[in-house]
């Protein structure tokens, strides 16, 4: 069967099997920026935004989200024009191996859209589903706080 998504603002059409999960469909079609392969929604590395909400793409049937807006890490910034969250993760030292980073940043992105002034607890709650074995999370939480600052400075300009 065929599905259509609007991925990072661009319409894409894919041929899929009805039983396939979104992660596999997107990766097969070149979206290698989405990581993860636990297929239980437990590690969070495959997080994407579906209509702005963070979801683990390994537990969602590709067919079920036909027609939806999907945002991957490439949809919020790139090497030349990184999103303040991407910049903050780099500046604060919150990226070690970087395998969990895209999913973690997207969870933080969804949080800041809803809540531009999160407390530490809000941040920890938002990132709770994104497992990281390298950083011990402290610098990730600091990075989100730093991004909040960068976003505010950006608005003041």
């Amino acid at each position: 069967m065929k599905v259509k998504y609007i991925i990072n603002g661009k319409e894409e059409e894919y041929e899929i099997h009805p039983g396939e999960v979104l992660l596999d469909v997107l990766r097969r079609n070149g979206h290698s920026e989405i990581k993860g392969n636990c297929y239980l929604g437990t590690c969070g590395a495959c997080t994407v935004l579906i209509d702005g909400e963070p979801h683990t793409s390994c537990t969602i049937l590709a067919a079920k989200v036909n027609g939806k807006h999907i945002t991957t890490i490439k949809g919020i910034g790139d090497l030349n024009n990184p999103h303040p969250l991407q910049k903050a993760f780099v500046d604060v030292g919150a990226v070690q191996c970087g395998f969990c980073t895209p999913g973690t940043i997207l969870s933080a992105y969804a949080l800041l859209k809803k809540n531009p002034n999160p407390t530490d607890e809000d941040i920890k709650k938002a990132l709770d589903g994104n497992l990281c074995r390298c950083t011990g999370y402290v610098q990730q939480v600091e990075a989100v706080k730093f991004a909040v600052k960068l976003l505010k400075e950006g608005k003041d300009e």
Partner: protein
Amino acid sequence: MSNFKSIGKDTKKIDALSLATGQPMFVDDVSFPNTLQIKLLYSPHAHAIIEDIDTSEAEKYPGVKMVLTYKNTPHVPHTTAGQGWPEPSPYDTWMFNEKVKFVGDRVAAVAAETEEQAVEALKLIKVKYKVLPAILDPEEAMKDGAPIIHDEPWITGAYDPKKNLAAHIDIRVGDVEKGFKESDVVVEETFETQYAQHTPIEPHVTITYLDEYGRLVIRTSTQVPFHVRRIVAQALQIPVQKIRVIKPRIGGGFGTKQEIILEEICSFVTLKTGRPARILYTREEEFISARTRHPFKVKVKIGAKKDGMLHAISLYALSNTGAYGTHGLTVASNAGSKTLPLYNKAENVEFISDIVYTNMPVAGAYRGYGATQGYAALEQAIDMVAEKLGMDPWELRKKNHIKAGETSPIFRALGEGREGVTQYIQSCALDELLEKGAKEIGWFEKYGRPKRNGSKVRGVGMSMHMQGSGIPLIDMGAATLKMNEDGSFNLLYGGTDIGTGLDTVAAQIVAETLGIKPEQVIVYASDTDLTPFDVGAYASSGTFVSGGAVLKAALKVREQILEVAREKFGEPDSKDYILENGKVISPKSGKSITLSEIAYDTLYVKNQHQIGATGSFVSPYSPPPFAVHFVEIEVDEETGEIKPIKYVAAVDCGVPINPNLVKGQIIGALVNGIGYALTEEYHFTPSGRMTNPNFMDYKIPSTRDLPEIKVILAETYEPTGPYGAKSVAEININGPIPAIGNALHDALGIRLHRSPYTPERVLEAIRKSKEKKLEPVDPE
């Protein structure tokens, strides 16, 4: 220190922005046309002989290109441990074995056009097993008459396979029996640590293909690219020359990727079919078939004099290496060699270890590497000695720890599977760490005064640690540096950054040495065709060994640059030139020249040559980093739940070349250690099958499990390391089990002798301690 321009600065990790923007940087982010997908069949039995294996139906399944079993793959005994050569681990496995030795041991592999086809074809393989009695308990393995796990005649390098002994260690200094007799107090306790796993978020993955010359290229998630090349060459009996190993970015390793467990299978398929091949472990496969931490049972006996001086220490470590002996000897060695020198005031010391085979998952290298298991026992026993002496355990540690200028006979007696190397400590800030850490946690106000709030009780605990920096006179790294027209440099080196930031540290070392910015160093690492050798990422060797090689190469290049500058300036004997801001400056004559001008001149105009050099580093030193950990916990007497409230890690890693990266290493390790102390544990059926191979049932820490964490760096200058640096990667995983265990004792007066400290175990210990209190007191 303040004169440094690049060292000690928070240079941004050079790969961080690419990673944070989702560039295709990992093994599996790149795909090759016509790739065969490989899936593996695992043994459902803990111990069995494959009497017959029929792959004919599987071979006929649509899309299937090959089925691999022990029947059609090379029978070359080797070890999967990616260690220096000759390896200290036994040659106790073939690529596929006729006899399977744990639930999860591989039986066959299918290579097919799609993963689905490979999975379906696996189901068609008919295996007739002769099930053998299994040994799941290491103590059973050592009993007379126990089934022999490795009875194949071809095994070599194991200590006594007929007794299921993969290795054995017996090191004695002084006379411990006499020492215990002379002691005023003696503590003897046994502590057990559990099966646990690294769980890098990127599982093991390998892609292989033939290049345009027919050479085998292995793109793999490894910590040891050069060992991969050597061991694949060995296992497949092909020349090293035919193989190129490429390590792209790696999604975490922590030791589990110091193993060659997929590369040889993938390579075999590519060599036989001529097609690219790929294996990617699922999370479940990662748990059941990759490597784990060696579970230990450690008997510790310590004797001390009334004044608090330790007099005799005996450690006996029973290590369960599981079905294969990979890293068995060396992990156990480290349980002694990385712990006992810390208490060098004890004159009588022994370390004895049996490393036994069982029909359980295979243990391997895991951050901490035996020191973690050793400290779990030793650092709790130290608290118990203090209690018997009526002394503050902080005071006891302060009296007994090793200091700069001192040595320990253990350094020489106990090496990595062979005799070690004598060393004197040249930098040690333990006193400062003890002072600052105690202040931060409020030790002297809180210790011995548990605070109760209903059923919740708070207590504090501490522990003290050392590790090493690479393996002395064994680990070697090399680096090549060459100059470009714009004064930038290519650094080609074998160092293996697995997410830790080593490539950034390497760039900072070059920048400092040549007076340029780290951004002017283009780092390319870990490609066996293009970079010089390095043993890889293990034993806390990155900054010290690989970084040491980078420094040597940079110093040679510096000298070449100065030689050109002297000629340019007409100052042949000048020795005091300064390299800064991309220029060579002669302070006396005031002359200066840019590195770019030197590069253009030497590449195109005069006395033409490539400014560049290769440096190799190997050292008789392995300077230990030191750490003191303090933790305040809250334990709920009703639920048994332990909650760490505040964790202080005071660390001496020499000069922190990049403080931000150092902080990340420290916190990452200690949070991993908190998981190991509180929740992480393999569960097994009575027949040896792991029952919790997923993140739902095997709980690693997430953001909401975090205590307040405070890192304190006490800066020392280590003269044997690059710009004063020592290692920092492993040491901080060693603290949580003993520190939290000691805090639990401070809070409730109970002590658990087995980790993790789950609510069930805490409640059980509370119940037992209450029963004990009800018993009539023995009149004395």
